[in-house]
């Protein structure tokens, strides 16, 4: 089917569903959002289904998951891994060693010893070898992609990684997912800082001979890569399309769409482009103060912003540490501004997290918590709003990445 015919077909199906009540079987939106206002692509070689649910460990809230197929490079020995977290706040594919049944190809340093990475997230780090895989998601393929295999036991965690004080995310109970699909603004997880030796190297990449791991300089193309940037087509970014959520739900389904303006189902349309500053951040203004370290991140599981003193939102305390527990649902209005001057108002709601968590649901549109001097627009921001993430250096119909658009 040509892209044009596909669009017409999708439109007719949507129209038929809008005119009848019998589309529950063909539509996957059964648990939430009967009236989505944003279009969600349902088919195409560049469309991977997303499910927001409690994840493979059964305890996740506001996590978006997809399936990813990895193959031993150049072979048909492949494995499809479900429940991989879609994360626009990081770059690169990371898979639990315990979820892999095939052996990928180890990357070795110039000295011929295994390359292993320590990547800090917020309260956790990932540690494990850098290996090469062919990656396929929906109909999109990338060959020989450096990915990270998460394991604390294949190589001893070095002091430089332990000195972050964080806990390991290398097991299913800790990660709550089988892996992380980092499809953020950047093409590599570290960039040029890691490619240079010396005091400016942040120390993410190690080589690990039997005598112990040492920090190395890791070239850009050897670093863990945004696999989307390496696809043969539709490689300039992604769209996350999730319908609106009007009440807590057990599951929500939507789409991860590859490419921006490359097919009939991924046009930028009326979305506004917000370019980040050099650190990958927006400026968010709230109550007259501006916070220039704000960002949009599908891998954050709520709206995280400022503190109870500034917002007036009560902290939950030790029972649900890191979330807000206001006595009633509270509406917050802020203004986002990109480095390109684009600006727009964002309205969010924050409910009592302890009340939300007392139900056995996993999809919450009004989950929030504190974060110092910033707004972190996490997964709830994506509900009812198609969010574009364009990769650095990639040409799109909305200009050259990096940018967000919504």
């Amino acid at each position, binding site marked *: 089917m040509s892209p044009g015919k596909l669009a017409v077909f999708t439109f007719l199906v949507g129209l038929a569903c809008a005119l009848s009540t019998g589309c529950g079987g063909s539509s996957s939106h059964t648990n939430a959002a009967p009236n989505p206002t944003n279009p969600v692509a349902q088919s195409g070689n560049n469309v991977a289904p997303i499910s927001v649910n409690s994840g493979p*460990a059964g*305890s*996740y*809230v*506001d*996590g978006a998951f997809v399936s990813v197929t990895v193959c031993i490079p150049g072979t048909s020995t492949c494995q499809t891994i479900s429940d991989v977290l879609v994360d626009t*706040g*990081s*770059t690169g594919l990371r898979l639990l060693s315990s979820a892999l049944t095939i052996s990928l190809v180890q990357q070795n340093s110039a000295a011929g010893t295994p390359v292993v990475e320590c*990547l*800090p*997230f*917020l*309260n*956790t780090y990932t540690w494990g070898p850098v290996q090469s895989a062919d990656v396929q998601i929906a109909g999109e393929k990338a060959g020989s992609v450096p990915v990270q295999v998460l394991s604390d036991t294949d190589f001893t965690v070095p002091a*430089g990684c*332990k*000195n*972050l*004080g*964080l*806990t390991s995310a290398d097991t299913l109970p800790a*990660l*709550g997912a089988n892996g992380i699909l980092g499809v*953020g603004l*950047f093409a590599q997880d*570290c*960039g040029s*800082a890691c490619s240079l030796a*010396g*005091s*400016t*190297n*942040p*120390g993410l990449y190690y080589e690990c001979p039997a005598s112990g791991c040492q920090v190395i300089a890791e070239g850009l193309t050897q670093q863990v890569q945004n696999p989307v940037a390496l696809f043969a087509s539709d490689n300039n970014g992604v769209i996350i399309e999730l319908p609106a959520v009007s009440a807590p739900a057990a599951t929500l389904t939507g789409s991860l769409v590859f490419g921006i303006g490359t097919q009939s189902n991924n046009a930028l349309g009326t979305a506004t482009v917000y370019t980040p500053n050099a*650190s*990958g*951040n927006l400026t968010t203004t709230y109550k007259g103060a501006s916070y220039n*370290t704000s*960002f949009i991140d599908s*891998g*954050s*599981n*709520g709206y*995280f912003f400022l*503190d109870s*003193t*500034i917002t007036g939102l009560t*902290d939950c305390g030790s029972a*649900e*540490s*890191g*979330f807000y527990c206001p006595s009633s649902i509270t509406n917050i209005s802020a203004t986002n501004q990109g480095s390109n001057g684009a600006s727009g108002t964002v309205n969010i709601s924050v409910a009592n997290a302890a009340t939300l*968590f007392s139900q056995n649901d996993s999809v919450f549109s009004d989950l929030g*918590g*504190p974060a*110092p001097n*910033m707004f*972190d627009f*996490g997964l709830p921001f994506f509900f009812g709003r198609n969010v574009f993430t364009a990769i650095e250096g990639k040409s799109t119909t909305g200009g050259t990445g990096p940018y967000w658009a919504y």
Partner: protein
Amino acid sequence: MVGTSFPAWAALGGDIASVEADQVHMQGTRRVTTAAAYTVHEIQGASGTVVREYVSSEGKVFALAWQGPWLPDMRQLLGTYFDQYAAAIKSQSGGRIGRRPLVIEQPGLAVELAGHSRSFIGRAYIPEQMPSSVGAEAIR
């Protein structure tokens, strides 16, 4: 750290010498500014991360803030408070899973850490040692 010339291997809760030890550890440059109740020693680390150390009029580091593309060496910065920090993180790693900013609020230690890959922001302070005129929002 037997054998080094630095009298302290700590910053939070430490004295001015520990700030100098941090500067050396980060291979950075240092700039000092003075507020009413404290001085701020800002260390620009070689890897691009900036650490600000808040020193009271009694000469003690009562708070830290950091910002940059990578996390600083938390063991170095938190010193004797590192074990409490690491234990608090470990104690939170149950229950509802999800990636979110780190918030530690305990007697004697508060730590917050947020951001994303290539942009981390955080602060740590000793609530009991904050000058009475200084709120957490000043630590940034």
